[in-house]
């Protein structure tokens, strides 16, 4: 049928436009900051090691931008997977407490064990994400879990876990210092070590998540319908939870808990792609880093001479949008 072909063309073109947008934001993120760079200087900074821009680009802007790309893709994809899995268009790993679980584990590791690097944090973050995912599922009713009960369980765990993180930081001044930026959600401390540490986890999570697009499409029709189509609901759920844990754990370990990106982007993207995850997931993976990097650049401009943490910017931008979405439903 011709209309179908045309629609595939439109969706592919849209994804291409999204990629162009991503390139533009990436360039902006390398150029904008305390020292403003022109396009030519960005280019020099990237390719010619001797130039004066090179140090700024290589040591600060490039790792920060790469981390923004990775974390953004991770948060957007995790949000889209979570929304598909819980059949709840407003689900989000942040709202379900998964990011808070990763944060609490990192805070504990910092205060009690003196862990102070992303390389150490990531394992605790993954562990915290897994524990909370299981806990939310159990508190939310196990096999009888409904979107509402899951959301309530997530909200409750969120409150408990963030109080815990605050308590840890109040009791231990050294951790407070190390974690102050981190708990707000920030890309500012990124270096190449951070990027290299989290990249394998995020890339693995993206692959597992994207491979789940078709089975999740089948599962969206109900468990019996999915089984009748030849998909295994238990296997699909396990794979999706694995992907979400990898993505959220790694993103949180690297930049702290960043809210609303994983919620808003997939929700807005659904208006463009419809509920087909074969399109929804790639769109979310491309457009979420656009939002995250865009917010980071905005934070650098608005906060001059210092900067606003990206987590603050997404919260300020995302909060009202989220309320509007809830009110419209």
């Amino acid at each position, binding site marked *: 049928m011709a209309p179908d072909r045309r629609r595939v063309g439109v969706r592919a073109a849209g994804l291409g436009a999204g990629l162009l947008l991503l390139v533009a934001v990436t360039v902006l993120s390398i150029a904008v900051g305390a020292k403003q760079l022109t396009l030519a200087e960005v280019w020099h900074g990237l390719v010619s090691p001797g130039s004066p821009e090179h140090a700024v680009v290589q040591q600060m802007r490039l790792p920060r931008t790469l981390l923004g790309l990775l974390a953004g893709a991770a948060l957007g994809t995790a949000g889209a997977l979570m929304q598909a899995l819980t059949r709840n268009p407003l689900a989000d790993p942040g709202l379900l407490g998964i990011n808070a679980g990763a944060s609490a584990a990192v805070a504990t590791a910092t205060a009690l064990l003196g862990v102070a690097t992303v390389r150490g944090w990531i394992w605790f973050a993954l562990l915290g994400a897994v524990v909370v995912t299981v806990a939310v599922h159990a508190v939310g009713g196990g096999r009888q879990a409904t979107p509402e009960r899951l959301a309530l369980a997530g909200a409750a765990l969120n409150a408990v876990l963030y109080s815990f993180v605050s308590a840890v930081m109040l009791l231990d001044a050294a951790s407070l210092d190390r974690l102050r930026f981190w708990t707000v959600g920030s890309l500012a401390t990124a270096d190449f070590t951070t990027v290299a540490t989290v990249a394998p986890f995020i890339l693995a999570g993206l692959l597992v998540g994207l491979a789940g697009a078709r089975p999740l499409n089948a599962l969206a*029709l*109900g468990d*019996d319908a999915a089984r*009748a*189509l*030849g998909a295994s609901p238990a296997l699909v759920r396990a794979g999706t939870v694995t992907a979400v844990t990898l993505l959220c754990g790694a993103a949180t370990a690297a930049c702290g808990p960043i809210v609303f990106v994983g919620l808003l982007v997939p929700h807005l993207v659904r208006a463009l792609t419809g*509920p087909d995850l074969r399109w929804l997931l790639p769109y979310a993976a491309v457009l979420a880093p656009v939002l995250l990097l865009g917010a980071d650049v905005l934070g650098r401009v608005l906060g001059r001479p210092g900067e606003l943490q990206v987590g603050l910017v997404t919260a300020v931008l995302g909060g009202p949008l989220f309320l509007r979405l809830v009110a419209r439903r």
Partner: protein
Amino acid sequence: MTSRLGGVGMTLAYERRVVARDLTVAVPDRSFTVVIGPNACGKSTLLRALARTLRPTAGTVLLDGRDIHTMRSREVARTLGLLPQSSVAPEGITVADLVARGRYPHQGLLRQWSTEDERVVAESMAATGVTELAARPVDELSGGQRQRVWIAMALAQQTSLLLLDEPTTYLDVAHQIEVLDLCARLHEEQGRTLVAVLHDLHHAARWATHLIAMRDGRVVAQGDPREVVTAALVEEVFGLPCRIVEDPETGTPLVVPRARRGRQSGPVSAG
């Protein structure tokens, strides 16, 4: 009678609640088999067992002579389709997209959408009369249209056996007839074997070519509805005293419940 699908000595249970014990059934090939019985008699459970969505705690379900639980999911899904009682249409999905999801067992990571898929989806929509609705969101359709779309999805799966769990529930009477006529057409014109769970005895007797009557997890009677549906059977299965007359349209048995004593004649009081 040959049979590609059936179950031998099945015990069917949810958690610890046993619904049926030592149940043996065979679905005749190229039949339109209808399973009837009172609420909670195990008819939907039987259908779920035959569809491989519920695993018997004892006994085997056989598909083409093999234990269905030793077969690969995809292989089963290419032979046997199911229209579940409760299915969910994702918010905002269009008719064409929903029907296309029936192609799942024919696709893979390396074998994505093909012209064959496109042809089958178009044929399935044409067979169920939903081609004009292709671009519409499923949420906006009437109950009858929506049920035809779900049947189209099951057809797109291209299985020679199709199981339908209460396909007429929640539909008004005209849409019930429409869905049953559609099933009959799929059975007669495309030679598919259909198994449906129905509530309405009249519908069962009129459309089925083979009837399985169940009560308390047992098969009470099975066979051609013209021979099986008797006043004694309806009394035994449903506990309903009735007379059987001939359906003036089709000559099939029509169940007429007996009036309560004292209400045989006279005006019906208003209120």
